[in-house]
């Protein structure tokens, strides 16, 4: 975690540099024009969210989802599953009944 990623500017806005960092995390390649535009637009949304950011919520537990259900279980019965060939038929590239992908390890930079 870099010092940059911790910084919230006084305006609550984010810089094009921070946007570029987030784009890398999200596996998105953005153009310079997109970086600038997203910095401005995300800044406006985060500015709107300042009311939430500044609210005193000491002692309030978080709600992750609204349903009071835990550990929903079903019988451990054998039932048909999706057909392998039908699933693999949707893949961009297949080899030996597996999903084929481009090489994972690149050349050393």
């Amino acid at each position, binding site marked *: 975690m870099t010092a940059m990623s911790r910084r919230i500017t006084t305006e609550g806005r984010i810089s094009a540099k921070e946007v570029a960092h987030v784009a890398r995390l999200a596996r*998105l390649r953005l153009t310079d024009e997109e970086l600038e535009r997203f910095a401005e637009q995300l800044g406006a949304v985060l500015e709107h969210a300042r009311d939430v950011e500044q609210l005193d919520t000491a002692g309030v537990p*978080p709600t992750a989802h609204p349903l009071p259900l835990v550990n929903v279980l079903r019988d451990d019965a054998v039932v048909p599953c999706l057909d392998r060939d039908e699933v693999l038929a949707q893949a961009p590239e297949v080899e030996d009944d597996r999903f084929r992908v481009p090489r994972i390890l690149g050349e050393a930079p």
Partner: protein
Amino acid sequence: MTSAIETAARVRAGEGRAADVLEEHLARIAAHESEVHAFNLVLVEQARAAAAAVDEAVAAGRDPGRLAGVPVALKDNLCTRGIPTTCSSRILDGWKPPYDATVVRRLVDAGAVIVGKTNLDEFAMGSSTENSAFGPTRNPHDLGRVPGGSSGGSAAAVAAGFAALGLGSDTGGSIRQPASLCGVVGAKPTYGLVSRYGLVAFASSLDQIGPFGLDVADAALLLDVIAGPDSLDSTCMPDPPVQASSRLGAGVDGLRVGVVEELASAEGLTPPVGICLREAAEALAAAGAKVDEVSVPATVYGLSAYYLIAPAEASSNLARYDGVRYGKRIVPSPDADLTEMYLATRSEGFGAEVKRRIMLGTYALSAGYYDAYYGQAQRVRTLILRDFEAAYRDFDVLLAPTAPGSAFPLGEKTADPLLMYLNDVCTVPSNLAGHPAVSVPFGTDHAGLPLGVQVLAPALGEAVMFQVAAALEAAAPAPPVPAMRRMGGPA
């Protein structure tokens, strides 16, 4: 147009043929779909086969089910086996799901006839159906205006008479807001009432599938058909479902109705919306309800909390679109590695709004910001739940506007994401709380465009919610009918 309930009754009794009902709807589609663009795909042959099967069942003395011969439009983020399911995104180009969504199975089992897959904002992210990779849907009441969104295609299809019923999904208002803008009924059920197996995920703690209909009874019937436990969805409640239709026509005498002050005065509301809300409240009071104002203070933080939580969940859910198992893969050069394939696939496959939300969500979840944004939004969610709980100690249902205004012109809000997000200010609190809410047409703006009013209820309060919605509908001025819906068939 005949109601879905009447159509099913006639088909089941052998007094009308599913094939004829379908052809009426296909004729309207043939005449007007090129103007409206409600559908990504019209399933003409499959629908004819389904209608024929319903008619054969009736002829053979078998009951085809509660939706016998009723044409239904499906939002194109509901999986249909062997039939393209696009989410209006290029990244799912060519994808044919290997399974049906549970709601699709239940429709088919009830004798419904699926007429097509409807347009949406890409991955259900938007409030106008303009964020579709296949171009916008237009409002049947005024082709220069949006139908709302993200389920704009299903709302427009029902408003135009292309289908008698529609299914949408509602993460922050995506059924109720287009229902309001298109002059139809649209409901978001309690979180967990309807199985989401086969609904392409946007924000998993908020998403629900729900019905569109031309009237309250039709929408309630469709909900009753799709609701109930499903072993394929562990977030679906295991108990027998509530019956949404059980109290229709019971009136509202003695019911306590609270008008939510914070939503009645929310950011960006236009004057006609306030007028319609007041008239709706007066109509319920005249019908015997005890109507009063109620404060639900934390709802003012709903929009901000929603636009942190929903993008955060979306950024996680949409990580699955990586070009490996299905959909589009772009390999930018013959020697590109896996990461370069991910980057190219996602950057070319997603549209601008989806990228924006993935970015916002990734930021809100990233190191150093998680607690300030995502964690804080989750605590606000608790406050909203507590405030609703307090309100429901004194009231059976709550009343609020659905959208800040009537249908707006295409392009008016596309350049300013925050302005577009403000469409959801009155709808997101119900998603954050997991509560049901329904939008009912009530009045028009000065240009004669339809407006809706929302009835909100506590978790699993669908029966009383539809009970009040039916009373509102009975008291409402006759809603405008788009000219294309009057075309053909019995009036």
